[in-house]
Protein backbone atom coordinates (compact mmCIF):
# COMPACT_ATOMS: atom_id res chain seq x y z
CA UNK A 1 0.00 0.00 0.00
CA UNK A 2 2.81 2.37 0.96
CA UNK A 3 4.52 1.50 -2.30
CA UNK A 4 1.41 2.38 -4.25
CA UNK A 5 1.03 5.62 -2.33
CA UNK A 6 4.62 6.61 -3.00
CA UNK A 7 4.23 6.02 -6.71
CA UNK A 8 0.76 7.50 -7.01
CA UNK A 9 1.92 10.27 -9.33
CA UNK A 10 3.71 7.79 -11.55
CA UNK A 11 0.59 5.63 -11.88
CA UNK A 12 -1.58 8.65 -12.58
CA UNK A 13 0.90 9.91 -15.17
CA UNK A 14 1.11 6.56 -16.94
CA UNK A 15 -2.68 6.24 -16.99
CA UNK A 16 -2.97 9.69 -18.60
CA UNK A 17 -0.23 8.79 -21.04
CA UNK A 18 -2.17 5.68 -22.01
CA UNK A 19 -5.28 7.82 -22.50
CA UNK A 20 -3.39 10.06 -24.94
CA UNK A 21 -2.02 7.10 -26.89
CA UNK A 22 -4.99 4.73 -27.11
CA UNK A 23 -6.49 6.39 -30.23
CA UNK A 24 -3.20 6.11 -32.10
CA UNK A 25 -3.04 2.41 -31.30
CA UNK A 26 -6.64 1.97 -32.49
CA UNK A 27 -5.88 3.84 -35.70
CA UNK A 28 -2.87 1.62 -36.35
CA UNK A 29 -4.80 -1.58 -35.62
CA UNK A 30 -7.78 -0.61 -37.75
CA UNK A 31 -5.57 0.27 -40.69
CA UNK A 32 -5.21 -3.50 -41.07
CA UNK A 33 -8.96 -4.13 -40.97
CA UNK A 34 -11.14 -5.24 -43.81
CA UNK A 35 -14.34 -3.60 -42.56
CA UNK A 36 -17.73 -5.14 -42.87
CA UNK A 37 -20.03 -2.42 -44.12
CA UNK A 38 -18.92 1.18 -44.52
CA UNK A 39 -18.14 2.08 -40.90
CA UNK A 40 -14.82 0.87 -39.58
CA UNK A 41 -16.01 0.24 -35.99
CA UNK A 42 -15.35 -3.45 -35.45
CA UNK A 43 -12.32 -5.44 -36.36
CA UNK A 44 -13.59 -7.81 -39.02
CA UNK A 45 -10.70 -9.41 -40.82
CA UNK A 46 -6.98 -8.80 -41.19
CA UNK A 47 -6.05 -7.10 -44.44
CA UNK A 48 -3.16 -5.09 -45.81
CA UNK A 49 -5.26 -3.53 -48.56
CA UNK A 50 -4.98 -0.03 -47.17
CA UNK A 51 -1.21 -0.30 -47.04
CA UNK A 52 -0.67 -1.84 -50.46
CA UNK A 53 -3.18 0.48 -52.11
CA UNK A 54 -3.08 3.76 -50.16
CA UNK A 55 -4.69 5.79 -52.94
CA UNK A 56 -7.45 3.20 -53.31
CA UNK A 57 -10.18 5.46 -51.99
CA UNK A 58 -11.24 8.01 -54.60
CA UNK A 59 -9.88 11.50 -53.98
CA UNK A 60 -7.84 10.60 -50.93
CA UNK A 61 -4.42 11.14 -52.47
CA UNK A 62 -5.46 14.35 -54.23
CA UNK A 63 -6.53 15.79 -50.90
CA UNK A 64 -3.33 14.55 -49.27
CA UNK A 65 -1.25 16.21 -51.99
CA UNK A 66 -3.11 19.49 -51.61
CA UNK A 67 -2.64 19.44 -47.84
CA UNK A 68 1.08 18.74 -48.23
CA UNK A 69 1.51 21.58 -50.73
CA UNK A 70 -0.44 24.03 -48.62
CA UNK A 71 1.29 22.84 -45.44
CA UNK A 72 4.77 23.23 -46.87
CA UNK A 73 4.13 26.61 -48.47
CA UNK A 74 2.29 28.00 -45.45
CA UNK A 75 4.90 26.78 -43.00
CA UNK A 76 7.80 28.22 -45.01
CA UNK A 77 6.19 31.64 -45.33
CA UNK A 78 4.93 31.66 -41.74
CA UNK A 79 8.38 30.60 -40.50
CA UNK A 80 10.06 33.46 -42.35
CA UNK A 81 7.55 36.05 -41.15
CA UNK A 82 7.46 34.68 -37.61
CA UNK A 83 11.24 34.42 -37.31
CA UNK A 84 11.64 38.05 -38.35
CA UNK A 85 9.13 39.14 -35.72
CA UNK A 86 10.79 36.93 -33.09
CA UNK A 87 14.17 38.52 -33.80
CA UNK A 88 12.68 42.00 -33.57
CA UNK A 89 11.04 41.15 -30.24
CA UNK A 90 14.00 39.27 -28.84
CA UNK A 91 16.76 41.56 -29.98
CA UNK A 92 15.55 45.13 -30.18
CA UNK A 93 13.88 47.76 -28.13
CA UNK A 94 11.28 49.66 -30.05
CA UNK A 95 8.11 51.61 -29.61
CA UNK A 96 4.88 49.66 -29.92
CA UNK A 97 6.27 46.54 -28.32
CA UNK A 98 3.20 45.76 -26.26
CA UNK A 99 0.92 46.39 -29.23
CA UNK A 100 3.03 43.92 -31.21
CA UNK A 101 2.83 41.35 -28.42
CA UNK A 102 -0.92 41.78 -28.33
CA UNK A 103 -1.24 41.34 -32.09
CA UNK A 104 0.83 38.15 -31.89
CA UNK A 105 -1.15 36.84 -28.95
CA UNK A 106 -4.62 37.58 -30.35
CA UNK A 107 -4.78 34.87 -33.04
CA UNK A 108 -3.90 32.30 -30.38
CA UNK A 109 -6.66 33.66 -28.14
CA UNK A 110 -9.33 33.55 -30.83
CA UNK A 111 -11.40 30.44 -31.51
CA UNK A 112 -10.73 29.03 -34.95
CA UNK A 113 -14.35 29.30 -35.93
CA UNK A 114 -14.18 33.07 -35.39
CA UNK A 115 -11.00 33.43 -37.45
CA UNK A 116 -12.35 31.29 -40.23
CA UNK A 117 -15.70 33.06 -40.43
CA UNK A 118 -14.21 36.53 -40.18
CA UNK A 119 -11.78 35.75 -43.00
CA UNK A 120 -14.72 34.53 -45.01
CA UNK A 121 -16.43 37.91 -44.58
CA UNK A 122 -13.23 39.68 -45.67
CA UNK A 123 -12.85 37.48 -48.73
CA UNK A 124 -16.53 37.95 -49.59
CA UNK A 125 -16.24 41.72 -49.40
CA UNK A 126 -12.88 41.89 -51.17
CA UNK A 127 -14.07 39.48 -53.85
CA UNK A 128 -11.29 36.95 -53.18
CA UNK A 129 -12.61 33.54 -54.25
CA UNK A 130 -12.54 30.58 -51.86
CA UNK A 131 -9.88 28.03 -52.78
CA UNK A 132 -6.24 27.12 -52.28
CA UNK A 133 -5.02 30.75 -52.18
CA UNK A 134 -7.59 31.72 -49.57
CA UNK A 135 -6.67 28.63 -47.53
CA UNK A 136 -2.99 29.47 -47.80
CA UNK A 137 -3.54 33.05 -46.64
CA UNK A 138 -5.55 31.80 -43.66
CA UNK A 139 -3.01 29.14 -42.69
CA UNK A 140 -0.08 31.55 -42.80
CA UNK A 141 -2.08 33.94 -40.61
CA UNK A 142 -2.74 31.49 -37.78
CA UNK A 143 0.71 29.86 -37.97
CA UNK A 144 2.76 33.06 -37.63
CA UNK A 145 2.02 33.50 -33.92
CA UNK A 146 3.07 29.96 -33.07
CA UNK A 147 6.33 30.39 -34.98
CA UNK A 148 6.99 33.65 -33.13
CA UNK A 149 6.53 31.91 -29.78
CA UNK A 150 8.83 29.01 -30.70
CA UNK A 151 11.61 31.14 -32.18
CA UNK A 152 11.41 33.88 -29.57
CA UNK A 153 11.99 31.33 -26.82
CA UNK A 154 15.24 30.36 -28.53
CA UNK A 155 16.34 33.89 -29.41
CA UNK A 156 15.83 34.95 -25.80
CA UNK A 157 18.45 32.43 -24.67
CA UNK A 158 21.08 33.56 -27.19
CA UNK A 159 24.00 35.32 -25.56
CA UNK A 160 24.46 38.73 -27.26
CA UNK A 161 28.13 38.43 -26.38
CA UNK A 162 28.52 35.74 -29.02
CA UNK A 163 27.59 38.26 -31.68
CA UNK A 164 29.94 40.78 -30.12
CA UNK A 165 32.67 38.16 -30.16
CA UNK A 166 32.04 37.54 -33.85
CA UNK A 167 32.29 41.27 -34.61
CA UNK A 168 35.40 41.47 -32.45
CA UNK A 169 36.95 38.67 -34.53
CA UNK A 170 36.34 40.54 -37.74
CA UNK A 171 32.96 39.26 -38.90
CA UNK A 172 30.84 41.95 -40.53
CA UNK A 173 27.13 42.10 -39.64
CA UNK A 174 26.11 39.77 -42.49
CA UNK A 175 28.77 37.19 -41.61
CA UNK A 176 27.85 37.45 -37.94
CA UNK A 177 24.22 36.75 -38.73
CA UNK A 178 24.89 33.85 -41.09
CA UNK A 179 27.66 32.16 -39.12
CA UNK A 180 26.68 32.79 -35.53
CA UNK A 181 23.15 34.08 -35.00
CA UNK A 182 21.30 31.90 -37.50
CA UNK A 183 22.95 28.56 -36.59
CA UNK A 184 22.31 29.24 -32.91
CA UNK A 185 18.65 30.11 -33.52
CA UNK A 186 18.17 27.16 -35.90
CA UNK A 187 16.60 24.71 -33.40
CA UNK A 188 13.91 27.25 -32.53
CA UNK A 189 13.27 28.03 -36.19
CA UNK A 190 13.03 24.33 -37.03
CA UNK A 191 10.62 23.76 -34.14
CA UNK A 192 8.50 26.72 -35.28
CA UNK A 193 8.45 25.44 -38.85
CA UNK A 194 7.39 21.94 -37.82
CA UNK A 195 4.69 23.31 -35.57
CA UNK A 196 3.41 25.52 -38.40
CA UNK A 197 3.36 22.59 -40.81
CA UNK A 198 1.44 20.35 -38.46
CA UNK A 199 -1.07 23.10 -37.61
CA UNK A 200 -1.65 23.79 -41.29
CA UNK A 201 -1.79 20.15 -42.29
CA UNK A 202 -4.28 19.34 -39.56
CA UNK A 203 -6.60 22.31 -39.78
CA UNK A 204 -10.21 21.66 -40.58
CA UNK A 205 -12.31 24.44 -39.07
CA UNK A 206 -10.66 27.49 -40.65
CA UNK A 207 -9.99 25.68 -43.92
CA UNK A 208 -13.63 24.70 -44.21
CA UNK A 209 -14.64 28.37 -44.33
CA UNK A 210 -12.25 29.19 -47.15
CA UNK A 211 -12.26 26.07 -49.28
CA UNK A 212 -14.02 25.59 -52.57
CA UNK A 213 -15.48 22.26 -53.75
CA UNK A 214 -12.38 21.77 -55.86
CA UNK A 215 -9.93 22.41 -53.01
CA UNK A 216 -10.52 19.52 -50.65
CA UNK A 217 -7.73 19.22 -48.09
CA UNK A 218 -7.01 15.97 -46.29
CA UNK A 219 -8.86 16.91 -43.07
CA UNK A 220 -11.84 17.97 -45.20
CA UNK A 221 -11.71 14.64 -46.97
CA UNK A 222 -11.68 12.83 -43.63
CA UNK A 223 -14.58 14.95 -42.37
CA UNK A 224 -16.60 14.15 -45.45
CA UNK A 225 -15.71 10.48 -45.15
CA UNK A 226 -16.78 10.48 -41.50
CA UNK A 227 -20.33 11.20 -42.62
CA UNK A 228 -20.36 8.57 -45.37
CA UNK A 229 -18.02 5.90 -44.05
CA UNK A 230 -14.30 6.15 -43.51
CA UNK A 231 -12.06 4.27 -45.96
CA UNK A 232 -9.39 2.17 -44.30
CA UNK A 233 -6.76 4.14 -46.18
CA UNK A 234 -7.46 7.08 -43.84
CA UNK A 235 -6.31 4.94 -40.92
CA UNK A 236 -3.21 3.84 -42.80
CA UNK A 237 -2.32 7.44 -43.64
CA UNK A 238 -3.02 8.44 -40.03
CA UNK A 239 -0.61 5.76 -38.85
CA UNK A 240 2.07 6.90 -41.28
CA UNK A 241 1.63 10.46 -40.06
CA UNK A 242 2.01 9.31 -36.47
CA UNK A 243 5.17 7.38 -37.31
CA UNK A 244 6.65 10.32 -39.24
CA UNK A 245 5.79 12.67 -36.38
CA UNK A 246 7.33 10.23 -33.93
CA UNK A 247 10.45 10.02 -36.09
CA UNK A 248 10.76 13.79 -36.41
CA UNK A 249 10.21 14.38 -32.71
CA UNK A 250 12.66 11.62 -31.78
CA UNK A 251 15.24 13.07 -34.17
CA UNK A 252 14.68 16.49 -32.64
CA UNK A 253 15.13 15.07 -29.17
CA UNK A 254 18.31 13.23 -30.14
CA UNK A 255 19.83 16.36 -31.66
CA UNK A 256 18.68 18.38 -28.65
CA UNK A 257 20.08 15.82 -26.24
CA UNK A 258 23.43 15.84 -28.01
CA UNK A 259 23.55 19.61 -27.75
CA UNK A 260 22.59 19.43 -24.09
CA UNK A 261 25.22 16.86 -23.33
CA UNK A 262 27.77 19.21 -24.80
CA UNK A 263 26.46 22.02 -22.67
CA UNK A 264 26.61 19.94 -19.52
Amino acid at each position, binding site marked *: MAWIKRHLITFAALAVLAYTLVPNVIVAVFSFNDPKGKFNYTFNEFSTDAWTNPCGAPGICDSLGLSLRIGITASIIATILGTMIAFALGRYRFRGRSATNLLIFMPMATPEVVMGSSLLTLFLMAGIPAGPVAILIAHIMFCVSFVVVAVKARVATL*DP*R*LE*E*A*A*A*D*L*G*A*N*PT*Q*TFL*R*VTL*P*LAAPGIAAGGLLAFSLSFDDYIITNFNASPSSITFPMYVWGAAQRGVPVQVYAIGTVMFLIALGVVVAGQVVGAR*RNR*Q*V*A
Partner: protein
Amino acid sequence: MGDTTVDRTGKGDLSLVALTKSFATFTAVHPLDLTIEAGSFFALLGPSGCGKTTTLRMIAGLEDPTGGRITIGDEDITDTKAYQRNVNTVFQSYALFPHMTVVDNVMFGLKRRGDKDAKRKAREALELVQLEQVATKRPTQLSGGMQQRVALARALVNRPDVLLLDEPLGALDLKLRRQMQIELKRIQQEVGLTFIHVTHDQEEAMTMADRIAVMNAGRMEQLGDPATLYERPSSTFVANFLGQSNLLRASVLGSESGNGVVRVRSHDTELEVVRDHLPQGVGDVWLGVRPEKLRLGESGGPNRLSGLVRDVSFTGVATQYSVEMPWGQELTVVQQNDGTARARLGENVTVSWAAEHGFALDASQDAEAGAELVDDRG
Protein backbone atom coordinates in the same frame (compact mmCIF):
# COMPACT_ATOMS: atom_id res chain seq x y z
CA MET B 1 55.12 58.00 -20.73
CA GLY B 2 54.27 58.27 -24.44
CA ASP B 3 57.87 59.12 -25.21
CA THR B 4 59.01 55.52 -25.01
CA THR B 5 58.18 54.08 -28.40
CA VAL B 6 59.66 50.63 -28.35
CA ASP B 7 57.86 49.35 -31.41
CA ARG B 8 57.76 45.61 -31.08
CA THR B 9 54.46 44.89 -32.80
CA GLY B 10 55.08 47.18 -35.72
CA LYS B 11 51.99 49.28 -35.04
CA GLY B 12 52.96 51.37 -32.06
CA ASP B 13 51.41 52.55 -28.86
CA LEU B 14 47.71 52.69 -28.11
CA SER B 15 46.62 56.20 -27.20
CA LEU B 16 43.37 57.32 -25.68
CA VAL B 17 42.85 61.08 -25.95
CA ALA B 18 40.11 62.64 -23.84
CA LEU B 19 38.09 59.46 -24.35
CA THR B 20 34.62 59.95 -22.88
CA LYS B 21 31.47 57.88 -22.51
CA SER B 22 28.24 59.35 -21.26
CA PHE B 23 24.89 57.65 -21.01
CA ALA B 24 21.57 59.38 -20.60
CA THR B 25 21.79 59.61 -16.83
CA PHE B 26 25.46 59.27 -15.94
CA THR B 27 28.99 59.49 -17.25
CA ALA B 28 30.69 56.11 -17.28
CA VAL B 29 34.09 57.42 -18.37
CA HIS B 30 35.17 61.01 -17.82
CA PRO B 31 37.68 62.37 -20.37
CA LEU B 32 40.50 59.85 -20.15
CA ASP B 33 44.02 60.37 -21.44
CA LEU B 34 46.21 57.32 -21.49
CA THR B 35 49.02 55.93 -23.58
CA ILE B 36 49.76 52.23 -23.46
CA GLU B 37 53.17 51.21 -24.66
CA ALA B 38 53.31 48.69 -27.49
CA GLY B 39 54.18 45.21 -26.27
CA SER B 40 53.42 45.92 -22.63
CA PHE B 41 51.11 44.18 -20.22
CA PHE B 42 48.77 46.85 -18.97
CA ALA B 43 46.06 46.52 -16.35
CA LEU B 44 42.94 48.61 -15.85
CA LEU B 45 42.08 48.07 -12.20
CA GLY B 46 39.04 49.25 -10.33
CA PRO B 47 35.88 48.26 -8.52
CA SER B 48 32.53 47.42 -10.11
CA GLY B 49 31.18 50.22 -12.23
CA CYS B 50 34.38 52.27 -12.28
CA GLY B 51 34.32 52.54 -16.08
CA LYS B 52 37.11 50.08 -16.86
CA THR B 53 34.96 47.68 -18.86
CA THR B 54 33.36 50.55 -20.75
CA THR B 55 36.85 51.82 -21.60
CA LEU B 56 37.82 48.36 -22.82
CA ARG B 57 34.69 48.07 -24.92
CA MET B 58 35.39 51.42 -26.52
CA ILE B 59 38.86 50.22 -27.48
CA ALA B 60 37.32 47.03 -28.91
CA GLY B 61 34.80 49.06 -30.88
CA LEU B 62 31.84 47.46 -29.11
CA GLU B 63 30.90 50.78 -27.56
CA ASP B 64 30.91 54.16 -29.30
CA PRO B 65 32.70 56.89 -27.35
CA THR B 66 30.79 60.10 -26.71
CA GLY B 67 33.99 62.05 -27.23
CA GLY B 68 37.75 61.75 -27.68
CA ARG B 69 40.00 59.71 -29.96
CA ILE B 70 41.58 56.25 -29.98
CA THR B 71 44.76 55.75 -31.98
CA ILE B 72 47.14 52.84 -32.50
CA GLY B 73 50.47 54.21 -33.64
CA ASP B 74 49.55 56.76 -36.33
CA GLU B 75 46.22 55.19 -37.14
CA ASP B 76 43.04 56.73 -35.76
CA ILE B 77 40.54 53.91 -35.15
CA THR B 78 37.89 55.91 -33.30
CA ASP B 79 35.31 55.68 -36.06
CA THR B 80 36.03 52.18 -37.32
CA LYS B 81 33.68 49.31 -36.53
CA ALA B 82 34.61 46.48 -34.19
CA TYR B 83 35.06 44.07 -37.09
CA GLN B 84 37.39 46.46 -38.90
CA ARG B 85 39.77 46.88 -35.96
CA ASN B 86 42.84 44.79 -35.44
CA VAL B 87 41.92 44.52 -31.79
CA ASN B 88 40.67 41.28 -30.24
CA THR B 89 39.00 40.54 -26.95
CA VAL B 90 38.99 37.67 -24.50
CA PHE B 91 35.49 38.02 -23.10
CA GLN B 92 34.57 37.70 -19.46
CA SER B 93 32.30 34.72 -20.09
CA TYR B 94 34.59 33.59 -22.95
CA ALA B 95 31.73 33.87 -25.51
CA LEU B 96 32.92 30.76 -27.34
CA PHE B 97 30.64 29.74 -30.20
CA PRO B 98 28.83 26.64 -28.89
CA HIS B 99 27.97 25.36 -32.37
CA MET B 100 31.58 25.18 -33.53
CA THR B 101 34.48 22.97 -32.53
CA VAL B 102 37.39 24.40 -30.60
CA VAL B 103 39.57 24.69 -33.70
CA ASP B 104 36.74 26.29 -35.69
CA ASN B 105 36.38 28.82 -32.93
CA VAL B 106 40.08 29.60 -33.10
CA MET B 107 40.04 29.86 -36.90
CA PHE B 108 36.97 32.11 -36.94
CA GLY B 109 38.89 35.40 -37.07
CA LEU B 110 41.49 34.18 -39.57
CA LYS B 111 38.79 32.88 -41.91
CA ARG B 112 36.97 36.18 -41.85
CA ARG B 113 40.13 37.74 -43.20
CA GLY B 114 40.54 34.99 -45.76
CA ASP B 115 43.75 33.62 -44.28
CA LYS B 116 44.78 30.57 -46.35
CA ASP B 117 46.92 29.26 -43.54
CA ALA B 118 44.17 29.41 -40.92
CA LYS B 119 44.25 25.74 -39.96
CA ARG B 120 47.97 25.62 -39.24
CA LYS B 121 47.93 28.90 -37.34
CA ALA B 122 44.97 27.75 -35.27
CA ARG B 123 46.80 24.52 -34.39
CA GLU B 124 49.84 26.54 -33.37
CA ALA B 125 47.73 28.84 -31.21
CA LEU B 126 46.18 25.81 -29.53
CA GLU B 127 49.66 24.44 -28.91
CA LEU B 128 50.65 27.72 -27.33
CA VAL B 129 47.83 27.33 -24.80
CA GLN B 130 48.49 23.58 -24.56
CA LEU B 131 45.12 22.49 -25.89
CA GLU B 132 46.00 20.85 -29.21
CA GLN B 133 44.47 17.59 -27.97
CA VAL B 134 40.93 19.02 -27.71
CA ALA B 135 40.85 20.77 -31.09
CA THR B 136 37.88 18.83 -32.41
CA LYS B 137 35.77 19.00 -29.23
CA ARG B 138 32.97 21.43 -28.62
CA PRO B 139 33.73 24.27 -26.19
CA THR B 140 30.94 23.17 -23.87
CA GLN B 141 32.70 19.84 -23.35
CA LEU B 142 35.69 21.62 -21.81
CA SER B 143 36.31 22.78 -18.26
CA GLY B 144 36.19 26.47 -17.40
CA GLY B 145 39.97 26.75 -17.41
CA MET B 146 40.24 25.12 -20.82
CA GLN B 147 37.50 27.32 -22.24
CA GLN B 148 39.40 30.31 -20.96
CA ARG B 149 42.50 29.19 -22.85
CA VAL B 150 40.50 28.56 -26.03
CA ALA B 151 39.15 32.11 -25.79
CA LEU B 152 42.71 33.33 -25.41
CA ALA B 153 43.93 31.32 -28.40
CA ARG B 154 40.99 32.53 -30.50
CA ALA B 155 42.00 36.14 -29.86
CA LEU B 156 45.78 35.64 -29.98
CA VAL B 157 45.84 33.79 -33.27
CA ASN B 158 44.84 36.97 -35.12
CA ARG B 159 48.00 38.73 -33.91
CA PRO B 160 46.02 41.81 -32.91
CA ASP B 161 47.70 45.16 -32.35
CA VAL B 162 46.06 45.12 -28.95
CA LEU B 163 44.64 42.15 -27.06
CA LEU B 164 41.91 43.00 -24.57
CA LEU B 165 41.14 40.76 -21.61
CA ASP B 166 37.87 41.46 -19.81
CA GLU B 167 38.11 39.86 -16.35
CA PRO B 168 39.29 36.71 -18.09
CA LEU B 169 39.98 34.80 -14.89
CA GLY B 170 36.91 35.91 -12.97
CA ALA B 171 35.06 32.62 -13.37
CA LEU B 172 37.94 30.37 -12.34
CA ASP B 173 38.66 29.06 -8.87
CA LEU B 174 41.51 30.51 -6.87
CA LYS B 175 44.12 27.86 -7.63
CA LEU B 176 43.43 27.82 -11.35
CA ARG B 177 43.42 31.60 -11.37
CA ARG B 178 46.92 31.76 -9.90
CA GLN B 179 48.10 29.24 -12.48
CA MET B 180 46.52 31.15 -15.35
CA GLN B 181 48.03 34.44 -14.17
CA ILE B 182 51.49 32.98 -14.62
CA GLU B 183 50.46 31.34 -17.88
CA LEU B 184 49.04 34.59 -19.29
CA LYS B 185 52.18 36.48 -18.38
CA ARG B 186 54.32 33.80 -20.06
CA ILE B 187 52.25 33.90 -23.23
CA GLN B 188 52.31 37.67 -23.35
CA GLN B 189 56.08 37.67 -23.10
CA GLU B 190 56.30 34.96 -25.74
CA VAL B 191 54.11 36.68 -28.33
CA GLY B 192 55.10 40.23 -27.44
CA LEU B 193 51.65 41.69 -28.11
CA THR B 194 50.10 44.56 -26.17
CA PHE B 195 47.77 43.11 -23.52
CA ILE B 196 45.21 45.24 -21.75
CA HIS B 197 43.76 43.41 -18.81
CA VAL B 198 40.64 44.61 -17.04
CA THR B 199 40.22 43.37 -13.49
CA HIS B 200 38.82 44.24 -10.10
CA ASP B 201 41.39 42.01 -8.42
CA GLN B 202 44.34 44.14 -7.25
CA GLU B 203 46.55 41.16 -6.60
CA GLU B 204 45.94 39.84 -10.11
CA ALA B 205 46.76 43.23 -11.61
CA MET B 206 49.96 43.56 -9.59
CA THR B 207 51.10 40.00 -10.37
CA MET B 208 50.79 40.36 -14.11
CA ALA B 209 50.93 43.95 -15.27
CA ASP B 210 53.92 46.10 -16.11
CA ARG B 211 51.79 49.15 -15.53
CA ILE B 212 48.44 49.66 -13.88
CA ALA B 213 45.83 52.38 -14.20
CA VAL B 214 43.58 52.48 -11.16
CA MET B 215 40.10 53.70 -12.05
CA ASN B 216 37.36 54.91 -9.76
CA ALA B 217 33.96 56.39 -10.64
CA GLY B 218 34.85 56.93 -14.30
CA ARG B 219 38.18 58.64 -13.61
CA MET B 220 41.76 57.43 -13.50
CA GLU B 221 43.03 57.73 -9.92
CA GLN B 222 46.65 56.79 -10.48
CA LEU B 223 48.91 55.36 -13.15
CA GLY B 224 52.15 53.56 -12.47
CA ASP B 225 54.01 50.32 -12.02
CA PRO B 226 52.72 47.95 -9.32
CA ALA B 227 55.43 48.76 -6.75
CA THR B 228 54.95 52.51 -7.00
CA LEU B 229 51.17 52.18 -6.71
CA TYR B 230 51.56 50.04 -3.64
CA GLU B 231 54.35 51.91 -1.90
CA ARG B 232 53.33 55.44 -2.83
CA PRO B 233 49.60 55.61 -3.46
CA SER B 234 48.50 59.09 -4.41
CA SER B 235 45.03 58.91 -2.91
CA THR B 236 43.25 57.21 -0.03
CA PHE B 237 41.26 55.28 -2.65
CA VAL B 238 44.39 53.71 -4.10
CA ALA B 239 45.86 53.20 -0.61
CA ASN B 240 42.81 51.23 0.45
CA PHE B 241 41.97 49.49 -2.82
CA LEU B 242 45.49 48.14 -3.32
CA GLY B 243 46.07 46.26 -0.08
CA GLN B 244 45.35 47.51 3.40
CA SER B 245 46.50 50.81 4.89
CA ASN B 246 46.55 52.29 8.36
CA LEU B 247 45.73 55.98 7.97
CA LEU B 248 46.55 58.33 10.85
CA ARG B 249 45.26 61.89 10.94
CA ALA B 250 48.28 64.25 11.24
CA SER B 251 49.31 67.88 10.75
CA VAL B 252 52.59 68.87 9.14
CA LEU B 253 54.94 70.64 11.56
CA GLY B 254 56.99 71.92 8.66
CA SER B 255 60.44 71.65 10.19
CA GLU B 256 62.76 69.76 7.95
CA SER B 257 65.61 68.17 9.79
CA GLY B 258 68.08 68.23 6.94
CA ASN B 259 67.99 64.54 6.14
CA GLY B 260 64.94 64.84 3.89
CA VAL B 261 62.51 63.99 6.67
CA VAL B 262 59.49 66.10 7.69
CA ARG B 263 57.97 65.97 11.15
CA VAL B 264 54.23 65.65 11.58
CA ARG B 265 52.06 65.55 14.70
CA SER B 266 49.43 62.88 15.06
CA HIS B 267 47.34 62.61 18.23
CA ASP B 268 50.01 64.42 20.30
CA THR B 269 52.79 62.23 19.00
CA GLU B 270 55.52 63.51 16.71
CA LEU B 271 56.21 61.26 13.74
CA GLU B 272 58.54 61.40 10.75
CA VAL B 273 57.84 60.96 7.07
CA VAL B 274 60.16 61.29 4.08
CA ARG B 275 59.71 64.68 2.36
CA ASP B 276 59.19 63.01 -1.04
CA HIS B 277 56.25 61.08 0.36
CA LEU B 278 54.38 64.24 1.33
CA PRO B 279 52.05 66.17 -0.99
CA GLN B 280 53.09 69.78 -1.67
CA GLY B 281 51.54 72.65 0.25
CA VAL B 282 49.21 70.65 2.45
CA GLY B 283 48.95 71.20 6.20
CA ASP B 284 46.62 68.36 7.25
CA VAL B 285 47.37 64.88 6.02
CA TRP B 286 46.54 61.23 6.38
CA LEU B 287 49.74 59.48 7.31
CA GLY B 288 49.61 55.99 5.84
CA VAL B 289 51.56 52.87 6.75
CA ARG B 290 51.05 49.37 5.35
CA PRO B 291 50.36 46.71 8.04
CA GLU B 292 53.43 44.67 7.13
CA LYS B 293 55.68 47.74 7.54
CA LEU B 294 54.67 48.07 11.18
CA ARG B 295 56.73 46.23 13.80
CA LEU B 296 55.72 45.20 17.26
CA GLY B 297 58.39 46.60 19.56
CA GLU B 298 60.83 49.38 18.78
CA SER B 299 62.87 47.75 16.04
CA GLY B 300 60.83 49.21 13.18
CA GLY B 301 62.17 52.74 13.30
CA PRO B 302 61.83 56.12 14.97
CA ASN B 303 58.03 56.35 14.65
CA ARG B 304 56.48 54.82 17.75
CA LEU B 305 52.94 54.44 19.07
CA SER B 306 51.67 52.41 22.02
CA GLY B 307 48.43 50.51 22.32
CA LEU B 308 46.56 47.47 23.47
CA VAL B 309 46.36 44.23 21.48
CA ARG B 310 42.66 43.74 20.81
CA ASP B 311 42.75 40.87 18.36
CA VAL B 312 45.23 38.26 17.18
CA SER B 313 44.61 36.14 14.13
CA PHE B 314 47.07 33.54 13.01
CA THR B 315 47.12 33.02 9.23
CA GLY B 316 50.05 30.64 8.83
CA VAL B 317 52.85 32.61 7.19
CA ALA B 318 51.96 35.64 9.28
CA THR B 319 50.02 36.83 12.29
CA GLN B 320 47.68 39.78 12.08
CA TYR B 321 47.17 42.00 15.13
CA SER B 322 44.66 44.68 15.86
CA VAL B 323 46.24 47.25 18.16
CA GLU B 324 43.98 49.85 19.76
CA MET B 325 45.45 53.32 20.10
CA PRO B 326 44.62 55.55 23.10
CA TRP B 327 42.25 57.59 20.84
CA GLY B 328 40.30 54.51 19.88
CA GLN B 329 41.63 53.86 16.35
CA GLU B 330 42.75 50.30 15.69
CA LEU B 331 45.95 49.77 13.70
CA THR B 332 46.45 46.57 11.76
CA VAL B 333 49.88 45.01 12.13
CA VAL B 334 51.06 42.01 10.13
CA GLN B 335 54.12 40.18 11.46
CA GLN B 336 55.89 37.42 9.57
CA ASN B 337 56.04 34.19 11.54
CA ASP B 338 59.82 34.29 11.63
CA GLY B 339 60.14 32.73 15.07
CA THR B 340 60.15 35.93 17.10
CA ALA B 341 57.86 36.04 20.09
CA ARG B 342 54.21 36.82 19.43
CA ALA B 343 52.17 39.38 21.36
CA ARG B 344 49.19 38.17 23.34
CA LEU B 345 45.63 39.42 23.52
CA GLY B 346 45.30 42.31 25.98
CA GLU B 347 49.03 42.98 26.07
CA ASN B 348 50.35 46.56 25.91
CA VAL B 349 52.66 46.90 22.91
CA THR B 350 54.68 49.50 21.06
CA VAL B 351 54.28 49.73 17.30
CA SER B 352 57.13 51.23 15.27
CA TRP B 353 58.04 52.01 11.66
CA ALA B 354 60.64 53.83 9.59
CA ALA B 355 60.15 57.27 8.07
CA GLU B 356 60.55 55.96 4.52
CA HIS B 357 57.75 53.41 5.04
CA GLY B 358 55.10 56.04 5.57
CA PHE B 359 53.26 58.04 2.96
CA ALA B 360 51.11 61.11 3.42
CA LEU B 361 47.89 61.97 1.60
CA ASP B 362 45.77 65.11 1.53
CA ALA B 363 43.46 64.96 4.55
CA SER B 364 40.54 66.39 2.62
CA GLN B 365 39.88 62.88 1.26
CA ASP B 366 37.69 60.24 2.82
CA ALA B 367 39.95 57.85 4.76
CA GLU B 368 37.62 54.96 3.96
CA ALA B 369 37.51 55.52 0.17
CA GLY B 370 37.90 52.25 -1.69
CA ALA B 371 38.19 50.14 1.45
CA GLU B 372 34.70 48.69 1.24
CA LEU B 373 35.16 47.81 -2.42
CA VAL B 374 38.03 45.40 -1.99
CA ASP B 375 37.04 41.99 -3.16
CA ASP B 376 38.41 39.28 -0.92
CA ARG B 377 38.25 36.53 -3.50
CA GLY B 378 41.79 37.20 -4.66
